[in-house]
């Protein structure tokens, strides 16, 4: 299965990645290779195996509803690429 140029650009857009022309070509091949590997996996007969989303046999892991201290505001904002007073500042979002 070969991924088209448009499909690669669409995936890049969803991930908010800007790609150069060379990268589009390279990723088109690499992503196609990955999908081909899954096609190999798909040959295994799984009709008797129930679907799962987990690889570890855990279920019902929950916490009680108790509040604890949050981090200080200064620490929360410390990594902000752009800060404005008590807020993170980001580019305008168009609805």
């Amino acid at each position, binding site marked *: 299965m070969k991924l088209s140029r448009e499909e690669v650009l*669409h995936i890049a*857009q*969803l991930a*908010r990645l800007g790609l150069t022309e060379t990268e589009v070509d390279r990723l088109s091949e690499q992503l196609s290779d990955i999908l081909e590997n899954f096609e190999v996996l798909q040959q295994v007969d799984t009709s008797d195996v129930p679907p799962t*989303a*987990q690889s*570890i046999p*855990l*279920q*019902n*892991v*929950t*916490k*009680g*509803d*108790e*509040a*604890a201290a*949050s*981090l200080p*505001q200064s620490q*929360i*904002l410390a990594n902000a690429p752009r800060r*404005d007073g*008590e*807020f*993170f*500042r*980001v*580019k*305008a*979002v*168009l*609805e």
Partner: protein
Amino acid sequence: MNFETIIGLEVHAQLLTKSKMFCRCSADYASAPPNTHVCPVCLGMPGVLPTINQQAVEYTIMTALALSCTVPDYTKFDRKNYPYPDLMKGYQISQSDAPFGHRGWLTIETNGEKKRIGIANVHLEEDVAKLIHRISPDGESYSLVDVNRSGVPLMEIVGEPDLRSPEEARQYLMKLRSILRYLGVSTANMEEGSFRCDANISIRPENSSAPLAKVEVKNMNSFKAVYRALEYEAKRQRRIALEGKKLSQETRGWVEEKGITVAQRSKEYAHDYRYFPEPDLPPLVLNREWVKEIGSKLPELPEARRDRFVAEYNLPPYDANLLTSSKAMADYFEACLKTGVPHSLSSAKRAKMVSNWLSGEFSRLLNATNTEIDNSKVSPEQLCLLLDLVHKASISGTSAKLMFKEMFNSGKLADDIIAQQGLSQISDTGVIEREVMAAIRNNAQAVTDYKAGKRQSLKFLVGQVMRATRGRANPRLVNELLEEKLEEG
């Protein structure tokens, strides 16, 4: 050509938990400074591990059961991917194909007829950060991000497109809000944003099975806004269809100030959420016994309480409906009856008297001052003392209303106000006689009219006496004395 309106509502309600959905930050962020209820989980920092809030799960199951949904044996969370700065992680933890409840209903009543509205599903997700849009002095627009709200448990209730008018939509929303408040799972306050509603609305030509384009309406921040926006949309869609134009399937925003909906700028591409099971959260297997136990502990819901009020207190269904539509009002009503005051009344008469006051003067003042009844300064005991005074005819109806207003505004006790303002009823015939004579002296024309057979004039004269005594004279005595004096004179 005639059209039928088809409406389906999606409601988001914040759950009343102490902590957030997947971390231990406090979920009570309303008055907190920006970005102070935040931790690495809220920020989606690499390596963090979210954990499911047990209380949020329980509240969601309670709601699902109260809405007659089927609660499955197995449920899980999924990642809903979309790039937007109100999502710190680049995805929202939500549920796609295994919600906590599905295929339920609630009952609304319009024009005295009951109608069942389907609930497609009830699922649980996390709220997103708050964005504040700004424009800098040089014209650059930007947004400020406050992450406090991000991660607060958010329950979504997806209604079936069973509603046929804006009024039915309003009834549905009020019923849903009432149920959530009875359950105590949410404050369900639209103005404060803990109860939000998006609507899907389309119209269907009378002889067709297929509705025309489905329009999603957003930005409605009150019950009134929902009603007005849907009224507007139903009209707009009919107008376009009748002009022979094609309706487009789109998202429109309600603009409150102008009273219209406008098309929202469409995203560059259609939503591509790429849901997949949340790898950080193991699935939940819902133990049947536990679900049953939650179901058995559900509080009495509005309909059951209304029916009980009719049966237990002999209230007319109309009164019972009004009282039970708000849990706080129904609680207040029952607290009043518990006092047993006025004692000399039968319990049915007492119930009706309390009901009349609650839906009359009390509701009027609550609405006028935008107060919730559980925040009112008048306690049930004080209200009943006042009703006792009215019942014993110690004060007139007019005085009682004035007194209630004073109690409502100042929180003063009924007895104190009587002592201070001398509002108690005048039954002293000497005092009343003096005022009656004055009224006869000062209103010669009315007296002549009365003697000429105009009964209306008596009422006028009674009014004069009541005015002179600031409503305190016993109306029965005033009437008697006036007739007596007029006959004599």
